[in-house]
């Protein structure tokens, strides 16, 4: 069902990107005003590559993912610009019927809370089997057999006995495995995982991340991992895009970013991770509050919280400066930020 491609080495440096988000703009029109949730986000993911999108609540990371899937609530949401290219085709220009075929087959998605994301009144096996029945026209019996295979594959114990159980009869980790089984059923090329481990306890988190990494190795799919948890990212990601106030403020290969962040926000995030060697000292926290999307600060959205703030930050929006081939930072003073932390 899922073939292991021989050229899959797990590295992120394949030819063309599978999925490219290009200068995406999304806003929400609410009674209180226009909330600019996504302001010119650009990122891409290739086969076998893992992109981690990092950011706090309201940074636009989930909205971007929902726009890729086409599950954004419109209205109040509205896409005001940009392209989302999958294998070179702009998804935003596709008619709904063709767009639908991309979902599940080409790109699929798993969500944070598997209990509410699974339909409470249908057995889990039925919900997985539905993928084969609707997309592939498989018979009920065949689809059920494949559902059991998939449940085995995501390591649900006694899959055959549990195929007719309902979501509420599973534990949180098992439910997330069912979500994953459903998402990888048709062997998609890109998997978007929106905070897949946030609702789980720490040991289960690690198991789920391991499972995702293993499935990715086997099928060579591109993985977009949306999270606010820096710890989750470090082991699995190839590259990271850090979002703040609906923009990407830094993107970098994972090791470069951890070793030497080029944006004050990233730096603040890294410093606020608890560390064993600093035990007993007060934990660092970024001062201030995340920006209000209805009333964004002028200039750089991060300037009210930024220790590197200068006059120009309050007036000019910093572009995403290219630092090197694969690195970028949307900070006027990225050189100072880099220097300050260079070994």
């Amino acid at each position: 069902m899922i073939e292991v491609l021989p050229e899959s080495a797990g590295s992120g440096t394949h030819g063309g990107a599978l999925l490219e988000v290009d200068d995406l703009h999304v806003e929400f029109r609410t009674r209180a005003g226009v909330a600019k949730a996504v302001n010119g986000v650009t990122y891409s993911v290739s086969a076998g590559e893992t992109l981690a999108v990092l950011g706090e609540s309201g940074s636009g990371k989930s909205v971007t993912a929902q726009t890729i899937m086409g599950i954004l609530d419109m209205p109040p949401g509205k896409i005001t610009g940009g392209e989302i290219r999958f294998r070179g085709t702009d998804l935003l220009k596709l008619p709904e019927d063709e767009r639908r075929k991309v979902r599940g087959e080409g790109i699929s998605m798993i969500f944070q809370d598997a209990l509410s994301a699974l339909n409470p009144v249908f057995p889990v096996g039925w919900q997985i089997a539905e993928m084969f029945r609707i997309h592939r026209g498989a018979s009920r019996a065949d689809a059920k057999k494949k559902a059991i295979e998939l449940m085995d594959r995501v390591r649900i114990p006694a899959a055959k006995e549990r195929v007719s159980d309902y979501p509420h009869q599973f534990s949180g980790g098992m439910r997330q495995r069912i979500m994953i089984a459903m998402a990888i059923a048709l062997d998609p090329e890109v998997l978007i995982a929106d905070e897949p481990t946030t609702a789980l306890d720490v040991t289960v988190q690690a198991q789920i991340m391991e499972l995702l990494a293993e499935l990715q190795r086997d099928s060579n799919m591109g993985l977009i991992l949306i999270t606010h948890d820096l710890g989750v990212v470090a082991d699995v990601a190839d590259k990271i895009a850090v979002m703040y106030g609906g923009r990407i403020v830094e993107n970098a290969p994972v090791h470069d970013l951890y070793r030497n962040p080029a944006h004050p926000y990233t730096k603040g995030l890294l410093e606020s991770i608890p560390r064993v060697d600093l035990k007993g000292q007060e934990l660092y926290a970024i001062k201030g509050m995340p920006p209000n999307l209805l009333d964004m600060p002028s200039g750089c959205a991060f300037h009210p919280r930024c220790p590197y703030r200068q006059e120009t930050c309050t007036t000019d929006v910093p572009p995403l400066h290219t630092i090197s081939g694969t690195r970028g930072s949307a900070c006027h003073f990225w050189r100072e930020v880099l220097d300050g932390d260079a070994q």
Partner: protein
Amino acid sequence: MGRYAIRRLLQLIPVLLGTTFLINYMVWQLPGDPFAARCGQRACPDSYISAMRAQFGLDQPMLVQYWHFLKNLLSGDLGVNFNQVSVASQLADAWPITIRLGLMAVAIEAIIGIAAGVLSGLKRGGFIDNVITISTLFMLSLPIFVTGFILQWLLGVQLQWINPTVSDAATVGELLIPAFVLASLNLAFTARLTRTSIVENRRSDYVRTAISKGMTNRRVVGVHLLRNSLIPALTFLGTEIGSLMSGAIVTEGIFNIHGIGGLLFTAINNHDFTIVVPVASLLVLVYLLANLLVDLLYGVLDPRIRYE
């Protein structure tokens, strides 16, 4: 679930005993002698009254009377009414008509109510939604007897599309408008319940999941959304079968339908308690069984409900 159903059925026994005792007790306590006025212009002779009292056991203590009622009920012998006509045969004539009327009303409630609710929930704020919201509000604010008389007058007398009254045969065609009248209140409630539940579930996570699985819009709405949204509406329809029965009394009165409602209506007017007691007891039984059915159905519709 089997054991749960048996337990619930056993629980029906004390409830039935209690309610039938109360019904028996209360009807015989009503003021007025049921036999005193049965002799036209003249007062009834004492000999007639005491003979009737003896025949129907009114001279015996309450508990003995109730015991006789239970014994007769269990042996299937409902006796005769005050006019010496078999009660069982009157019930046998009337029940099928009321059941037909009731089933038609439930079907109308379910089909039109749910369809209207789904439509208005999906097109929330649109033209159809407004039309449905206003017309259900209209239905909700009119009591059944007003709706009944208006439709009878409009369709039966003015436009002459239907017969204003229903014949003894009470065919499905003839019962259509009475059934609609009987259904009108619950129909409006069902539509509103379904609408709310569709609006609520439409933005739910599992609907979003179904879309991201690449399901067609028809399947997302018709399978994933609908199955969850129907639960409150179906529970409501089930519990309201009992109130449908009391609505049937009014509706059958308006359209001169010779069903249980009509029978009960005349019997109450004539103080003929030999009819009132068994009919009222039967209505209680229908109500109890409908409630049990709903509880069991709820478990089938929503797997999160478990019985043990």
